[in-house]
């Protein structure tokens, strides 16, 4: 069942320096029980995309279509979106320390969401908070519910954040870099927790991250974003085994590998992310693109002529590169996870 269908989503901010086109036409769908991974570096538009879906893009102009369980959210009255927010679709933010309110207890903050959507009484809502805290593996949940965020450890706080998102039993969870602030072992626990909850409840998840390791671990489908647009879109296995877009290939090449020969240098993509105020003409990636640099002048002209569309290059596999050569097998799924 399709939970979320996003079509041609564009987000623009008007700033003193000009219009920032943070997202420029992105399409994706999320199915119940499946995980969509959105990868990209900072400024690629991945977080803005998720905020726009939730209707939390303050001061930005959003166009396109976001259909959630059949309801169009773009242009919908604020009250309609508010009633879905936290109830049917919930969000897990990156830094739980700053994302949880320092003045209120964890239990209070979770109970508040429940009360807002179900009109539950104070006591029942708090009981529900204790229950979800237990669900996410917080020991002694009844006692910890009375504590403040700063009394929790980093991993516990992120669990509490997940508990908050789960408290109203949503159908979709958007997790924006939920493990970035955590150390590796805790990171693994939190991801496992999310996956377990997904299996138990059939949740749809959007996992936003810059970490390909996280994507390899959890995602069913992957959307690679660059400069506010989709670069490549494919099932996770396909993406890791046969990446088609030079940006995705660059990302995979830049992962450190244990089986690399001694003295093999770590590959990096040269240059820096594009300015969203005045993006490069044509393909946003071409100034950093090895394939573009290697191509003959007359062939590569297409890269600067206009924005390359996302084209179907194989079954369920789309890439936005006009210089796409026949694909060759590369990194396998397992190698990235390891």
């Amino acid at each position, binding site marked *: 069942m399709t939970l979320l269908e996003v079509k041609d989503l564009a987000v623009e901010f008007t700033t003193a320096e000009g219009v920032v086109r943070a997202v420029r036409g992105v399409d994706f769908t999320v199915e119940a029980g499946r995980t969509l991974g959105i990868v990209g570096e900072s400024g690629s538009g991945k977080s803005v995309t998720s905020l726009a879906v939730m209707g939390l893009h303050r001061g930005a102009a959003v166009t396109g279509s976001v259909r959630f369980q059949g309801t169009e959210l773009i242009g919908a009255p604020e009250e309609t979106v*508010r009633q879905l927010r*936290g109830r049917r679709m919930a*969000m897990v933010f990156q830094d739980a320390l*700053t994302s949880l309110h320092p003045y209120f207890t964890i239990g209070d903050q979770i109970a*508040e*969401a429940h009360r*807002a959507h179900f009109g539950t009484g104070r006591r029942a809502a708090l009981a529900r908070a204790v229950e979800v805290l237990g669900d996410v593996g917080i020991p002694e949940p009844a006692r910890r519910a009375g504590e*403040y965020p700063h009394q929790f450890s980093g991993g516990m706080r992120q669990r509490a954040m997940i508990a*908050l998102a789960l408290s109203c039993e949503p159908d979709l969870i958007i997790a924006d870099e939920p493990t970035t602030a955590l150390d590796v072992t805790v990171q693994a626990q939190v991801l496992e927790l999310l996956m377990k909850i997904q299996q138990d409840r059939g949740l749809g998840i959007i996992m936003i991250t810059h970490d390909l390791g996280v994507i390899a671990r959890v995602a069913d489908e992957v959307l690679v974003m660059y400069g506010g647009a989709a670069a490549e879109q494919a099932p996770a296995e396909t993406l890791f085994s046969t990446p088609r877009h030079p940006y995705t290939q660059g990302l995979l090449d830049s992962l450190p590998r244990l089986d690399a020969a001694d003295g093999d240098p770590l590959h990096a993509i040269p240059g820096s992310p594009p300015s969203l105020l005045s993006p490069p003409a044509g393909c946003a990636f071409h100034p950093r693109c090895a394939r573009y640099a290697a191509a003959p002048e007359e062939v590569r002209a297409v890269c600067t002529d206009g924005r390359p569309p996302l084209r179907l290059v194989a079954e369920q596999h789309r890439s936005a590169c006009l210089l796409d050569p026949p694909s060759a097998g590369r990194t396998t799924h397992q190698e990235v996870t390891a």
Partner: protein
Amino acid sequence: MIAFLIRRVAGILLTLVVIAAITFAVFYLLPSDPAAQFCGKDCSADRILLVRQQMGLDDPVTVQFGRYLVGIFAGQTLGSGSYAVHCGFPCFGYSYQSAQPVWDLMMDRLPASASLAVGAAFLWLVMGLAAGVVSALRRGTWLDRTLMVGTIGIAAMPVYFTAMVLLYFVVGQLNLIPYPRYIAFGEHPFQWIQNLILPWITLALMSAAMYARMTRNSVIETMAEPFVRTARAKGLRERRVVAKHGLRPALTPVATMLGMDLGGLLAGALITESLFGLPGVGKLFADSLNKADQPVIMGVTLLASFFIVTSNLIVDVVYAWIDPRARLS
């Protein structure tokens, strides 16, 4: 909490002693002779010597200072023989000018100062918070711009200018109220308000402008915090997001500032009291400065310091009550 309070109170006492020592030293270094002053204009040299002796001015400065400090709590007997006067706790000595106990002088004047300070604080808090919050939530609109330009203008007006303008128009031209004179609250509450309204406005305007700007910045900053975004992501109504999740942390620094400002004002708003002829502690201080009336100046300085350090302590306790992170476990 108990240990914290004990530590803080000890710190307060130490601060007060240091302030007393500095004030005392300043007067010791001044060329004026308290004995000559106390004795009056037509005193003979012999008599001045006698007075010096009786006032203990021949003792080393440290002894004098020690006597002053101990005297505050234990009381002290000044002079000797038939001239002896006992001054009980809390003893800050006698005014050289009026020969009245300093403590009584200050307590006589305190109600006027406190009335002025508390009323003005209430006024500027209401005006400042309202303007600041509205400005922040309507950021970038004409209302915000008007308010913020207005606050710069108001903040730029000196107190004596405001006072003169108010007196000229409200009292002089429009005859709305009679020229203000202080009437105690207990005597006639309505006239108390009527006579204090101009001093209140005078004292409150500049602070209201500063509070408005500070509140606006604080609210804007807080509303951009990730925890406010989380509150919205939970699906709370915007009104609740602002009132519960935004304003509480945004107003914490304002409460801190209010505590300090109010503490400083309780012991007298020197200029405003002088402008309106209010019989407050500030006026007492100004008059004593003119006459180099050391005991009164010492007393008022210590009283003012006491209010400031105490309000600081209260602010800290309130802060811990508002923000759980400040509660040390």
